[in-house]
Every structure is written in C-alpha cells, then in structure tokens.
C-alpha cells in the first residue's frame, strides 16, 4: 500500500515518556486480562448447588450381610460399603506389606474397633471405572477396563492403578450406622 507509517525521527523527545506509557499500559492489560479470566475459570468450578448437594449422608448397616458390598452415592461419587467375612479379615491382616503396590496396614483401612466394615470410593484409581466385586485373585475387586485388582480392603495389588481405593471421610454414629461426609468435624480426608 502507498501509505506506510514510521516512527518520526524526532529526537527532541527522549523516549522515557513513551516507554513509561508502554510499560504501564502493558502491565495494566496483563492485570486486567487476569482479572477478567478469573471469573470465567472460577465459574467452571462446582457451583453452590452442587456443593450443597454434597452434604453428609447416613447409611444404616443393619441390612448388610457378611461378604455383601453395598453401593451408595455421596457427592455423585460411588462408595462401596462392604461387610468383611471373618476369613477375609484374617486373610487381609496376614498380607505382608511387601506384597502391596501402596503398602497400607489393615488397621489403616478400617475404623478402630470396626474390623468388619470397609468404606471406600468405588472408582478405580487408574481411570475411574467401577471395579467388579468378588472378582480377581485377592478376594476383592477387579477392574474390567484395564485389569487392575484390589484386595478385600481395597488395596491395589495389581496395576495399572497406582494407589489404593481412597477412603472417604466417615464416622460411626452407632455400631450400626455410619455418616459419610464428615469425620468428627474435620474436612475431607
């Protein structure tokens, strides 16, 4: 095109005023862009309604039989409540830590004094599929998606899952009732 512009070769101004304007405007734009981006990103986080729907739930344990696995949902996440048989309790206590991918003692998987009760999140720690109960070689779960296996207290025993099934925050209200979602006033585990 015929019209081109070039900075005037006028040396009477020293550049400091223009430099200042350039830097100040640039800094203002950067801060402004971040300030504008924040609400957009934040709006994608779980909203108040979703958080409110995540209030703690109570589960009655009386109907659950020995060896049975019951599915419950808290915050839209699947949770297994499992009543271990006395054989499973004995077997799981006997597993050496060296045989595990993420070593965890039996006592760390159940609440003190409630050896029979296991409460774990029901999504495989690999990519989130639901492992099938009473399958696999470890009296626990086997994942149909990528072949991970968990034992009767939800410890991963065969990959690709990297960690044990996490334990949600919960507490025994009575011997036959648990409350999932809070742990004696503390937040999420």
């Amino acid at each position, binding site marked *: 095109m015929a019209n081109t512009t070039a900075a005037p070769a006028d040396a009477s101004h020293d550049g400091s005023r223009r430099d200042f304007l350039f830097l100040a405007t640039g800094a203002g734009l950067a801060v402004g862009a971040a300030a504008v981006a924040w609400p957009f990103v934040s709006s994608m986080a779980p909203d108040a309604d979703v958080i409110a729907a995540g209030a703690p739930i109570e589960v009655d344990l009386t109907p659950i039989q020995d060896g049975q696995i019951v599915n419950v*949902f808290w*915050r839209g996440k699947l949770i297994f409540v499992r009543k271990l048989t006395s054989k499973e309790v004995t077997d799981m206590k006997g597993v050496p830590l060296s045989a595990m991918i993420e070593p965890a003692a039996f006592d760390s998987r159940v609440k003190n004094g409630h050896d029979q009760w296991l409460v774990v999140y029901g999504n495989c720690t690999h990519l989130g599929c639901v492992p099938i109960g009473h399958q696999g070689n470890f009296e626990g779960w086997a994942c149909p998606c990528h072949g991970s296996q968990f034992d009767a207290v939800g410890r991963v025993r065969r990959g690709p899952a990297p960690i044990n099934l996490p334990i949600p925050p919960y507490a025994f209200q009575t011997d036959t009732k648990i409350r999932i979602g809070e742990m004696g006033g503390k937040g999420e585990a």
Partner: protein
Amino acid sequence: MSGTASTYVPKSRVAKWFESRLPIVGLVHSSFIAYPVPRNLNYFWTFGAILAAFLGIQIITGVWLAMHYEPSATGAFNSVEKIMRDVNYGWLLRYAHANGASMFFVAVYVHMFRALYYGSYKAPREVLYILGVIIYLLMMATAFLGYTLPWGQMSFWGATVITNILAAIPVVGDTIQSLLWGGYSVGNPTVNRFFSLHYLLPWMIAGVVVLHVWALHVTGQNNPAGIPIKSGKDAVPFTPYATVKDVFATVVFMILFAWFLFFMPNYLGHADNYIQANPAVTPAHIVPEWYFLPFYAILRAVPDKLGGVILMFSAVIILAFAPWLDTSRIRSCNYRPIYRQFMWVFLGVCFVLGWLGSQPPEGGYVIASQICTAYYFAHFLLVMPLCGLFETPKPLPGSIVESVTGPGRQISGAGMPAGAAAAPQVKG
C-alpha cells in the same frame, strides 16, 4: 491466497468498484480457479476436499441436532431417543452426524498417511503440516466431547476415563479435572459444558482450516514426485482440473458414507451406548470409538498411569516433529526404496495397535501392545533420522512432466499459460 498473484481482472464497472474495495473475488479466483496444481497429483490429493465436505456435513447436521438435543444428565438420553423416534428425519440427522464423524476420521487418516508417505511435511511445508496436526488434535477433542453427549453407558464411562487421564497431570491435574466436571464426578454440569465446548470446537477447526489452506497456497501443493513446479508445463489450473477431480472423489467417498449411513448405521458404535448412563456399573468391555483405538492401546501398554498418559499424548505430538526428525532431502517415498518399506510396516503397526486397543488388556495382548508401541516411536525416533542418512535414493525426475511421461519426452495439451506459471515455492 497471498502466495500467488491474482490473474483476476474484473470486467464490469460494479465488479471493478467492488474489487477495489474488497478483493475477495480475486482471492477466490487466485485460490480456487487460477491456482496452479501439479499435473501429476493422484487421488490421495483429493482427501483435503473430502475433509472439507465432512467438516461442512458435521457442522450442518450438528446445528440441526442441537435444535432438539437437551444437554442435561436427566434429559440428554431421552432427547436423543426423541430425535431417533419423534423428530422428522431425526434418525437421518443423527446417523449422518455419528457416521459422518467416523468418515471424517477415515478421510483424515488417509490424508495423514499421504502427507507422511509423500513427505508433504518437509520444507517448505512445515507450518502447513503442523497446522494439520493441530486440526487433528481439535478433531479428537471434538469427537470425544460429542461422544459423551448421548449420555449412554459408553458416553458416561468414556467421559470418566478420559477426564481421569487428565487427573494424572502432576500438580494441576485434580484442578483441571474438577473444572471439567463442575462437580465431584462426571454429572449434569459435565454434560452441559461438554455440549457447549462440542459446539465451539468445530468453529475453531474451521478457523485453523483457513490457515491450513492459506499456508498450502503459499507453498504450493506437494505431489507424488515430491519435486516443485518448475515450468508452466508442470501445472494445470485448479479449475477445472482439480475441481472436477475433487468433486468426483468426494462423490465416490459419499457412497461409502451412504453405505454406512443407510445399511449399517450402528456398526461403528457400541450397543452399550443405548443403555442410559449408570454411574454404579461400568460396561464389561469399555473401548473407545475405532479411531482412538491405536492410542488407547498405547495408553494401556505401560502398567503405569502417568507413564501411559505421557506415551499416549506423545504418540500424537511426535507427529508435529516429523519435519525435523526426517533427515532425508527426498520428499516422496517413490524415490526412497528403504524408507518406503518402513512406511508400510509403520502403517501395519498402526492397524495392529488399533486391533490391540479393542482387545482386553491382559496376557499376550499387553506384550504385543508394548512391542508395537515401541515400534511406533522407533519409526519416528530411529527409522526417520537414520534412513535419511544411510539410504541411497533413486534418481529424481527432471520435472513433474518427466515423472509422468518419462525422460526427454514432450507433452502436448493444456498446461498453465507461461506467464501465469506461478511456482510459488520458488518465491518462498
């Protein structure tokens, strides 16, 4: 586009008035009418046009489906069934959209193999090629988001598995996952935002396609001989030669599309996706759509979450480095006797990976996946650099005309007029 001077001369006063204000007719003329096309292009070069057609089909059927679809965890599945049963021709729109996605990937894989086989990624077409890789990535994201929308079992568990893949990213993974979910698991906010993003990405694809075509018209097309246009005899004008060929190939490809659409519309899908999403039960055999299977096999090849995720993404990203990994100065495999064999082996390995991705992750399948994954990366990291160093290429023909007629023969008939014989790559 900008690489070739327009030979368009407006005739009427109105056309002159308009052209001096917005030279868009000249732009179209120089890009799609006078644009010089190598005269030796084979049918592999028609897949760009086929892909453009499918982008159009997907956008149009998608916009119409969105008029009936309800993006919510409670309504999505039922609204898709409503589209299938109640909406006039809803079945046609939905089957066209679902099978159109598969055909889109068939075409893009042929297009990508063409680029790799004939060395279309090499200088001066690196940017053109990398834009293509970006389009492919956007296509994968769009296809994944779209597949979650019917909210069947495969939709739900596909969404769960893929968002869990992102959670493997160190430090920020959990935050990204939570922002994608909009909750504590895949649920109503997830399907809602996935619909929004599924509607957004095709327009981004369209935008990158414009850049892709622009870059193409700056460097000019590669061709089966892999040598540049040297004279007017080497080229023919885009219209009518390439236009007719592209349209013909598109129509033939549409026969394949129609065959799936009308005779086996569910063949490429999964029956499990006609069961509404159930967060308590994972389908017994969860596999992605066929076009993701090779990458799924790579993901499962390593018994380590982060490692598998890194390998899978690397398998796509490594494509973008092909221009620099390939050390050969010869573009076309037609003149590379050794590398040509490796190209076909590579294609075979991709097919085997695809098959392995559809099999359960156990025993021999895992070992085979590991071997094929190793070969996939070795092709880029060993074969590409080393072949270029040790291979003795066949002699290149003196010109594109010579590659067609044999050395020393003259060619009669149409070519580009001498003056218009733009050899855009010479300029660059």
